């Protein structure tokens, strides 16, 4: 088997394992990454919501916010893990497509 094939299989396995990135922080009661708090979180931390931050924070409405489906914020870890895997698949499909397109455009023909 070609090594690139093995690497793609590795990526497939990692996709299935990706919910670990959701479950472990939950288990160990770890919160947001530093500097990535939501508006509520920041108010709790510093006592106010910076005015400019408040204006810009909701600027972009991502189709799969935080690697989940919209309106699924209150769902259990099982559903969220499922959404996480779907997000990984969608994200990687787009990334790979974009990378191949850019690669084809830029690479030398041999």
């Amino acid at each position: 088997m070609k090594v690139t094939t093995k690497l793609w299989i590795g990526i497939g396995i990692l996709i299935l394992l990706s919910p670990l990135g959701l479950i472990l922080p939950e288990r160990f009661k770890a919160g947001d990454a530093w500097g990535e708090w939501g508006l509520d979180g920041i108010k709790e931390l510093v006592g106010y919501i910076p005015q400019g931050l408040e204006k810009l924070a909701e600027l972009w409405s991502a189709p799969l916010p935080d690697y989940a489906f919209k309106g699924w914020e209150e769902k259990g870890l099982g559903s969220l893990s499922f959404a996480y895997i779907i997000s990984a698949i969608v994200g990687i499909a787009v990334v790979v497509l974009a990378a191949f397109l850019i690669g084809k455009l830029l690479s030398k023909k041999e």
Partner: protein
Amino acid sequence: MHIPDGYLGPATSGVMYAAMLPIWGLAARMVKETLNRRQVPLLAIAAAFSFLIMMFNVPIPGGTTGHAVGAVLAAILIGPWAACIAVSVALIVQALLFGDGGITAIGANCFNMAFIEVFAGYYIYKVISGSSAITSARRVIAAGIAGYAALNLAALTTAIMFGLQPLLQKTASGESLYCPYGLGVAIPAMLGEHLLIFGWVEAIVTALVVKYLQKQDARLLETLKEVRA
């Protein structure tokens, strides 16, 4: 390490976009000169791996989370210019589709993770590897050290961007308009957690994959020479 919308003022976001545009342009030119068609799948794998490894949030119990970036691995595999493009693609998709990192901060996030980390990691790996054989243990260690150091450098530049905000924009009453924490808080917080935990994750991931590739097909690691030539 993904700066969200609202944490950077327009000056910082603008400067970072302005910095990245010529870097992306140069990257496209360099890749055009050096990338062989058969290396394109590696570009896609590097981008996919970077995207995916960033989803593996590692917790500090009771504290924050963080993750590896895979940028140094990408640089070792396909060279720094192609890696810059690969990691940028991952970051842009994360921002647009998943709201991970702000769209106003794409320039800043790409600067930290797709430029600083990629190039720092690449040169550290190169210097430590020296002229050692492609399958030598020295290269595995070099990959680990490069991963650790470069991720921390990216954490530092990210922290500086955060920490500059209260200095740059303030209301009359002294509240920050954007990121509320100054350099004195941002740098120890960001650097501390990356030195302590997340840097090691990047180190281990980078070293393990390099070791795996040495065993499987060391020629993949030699593509670096062709890319540079």
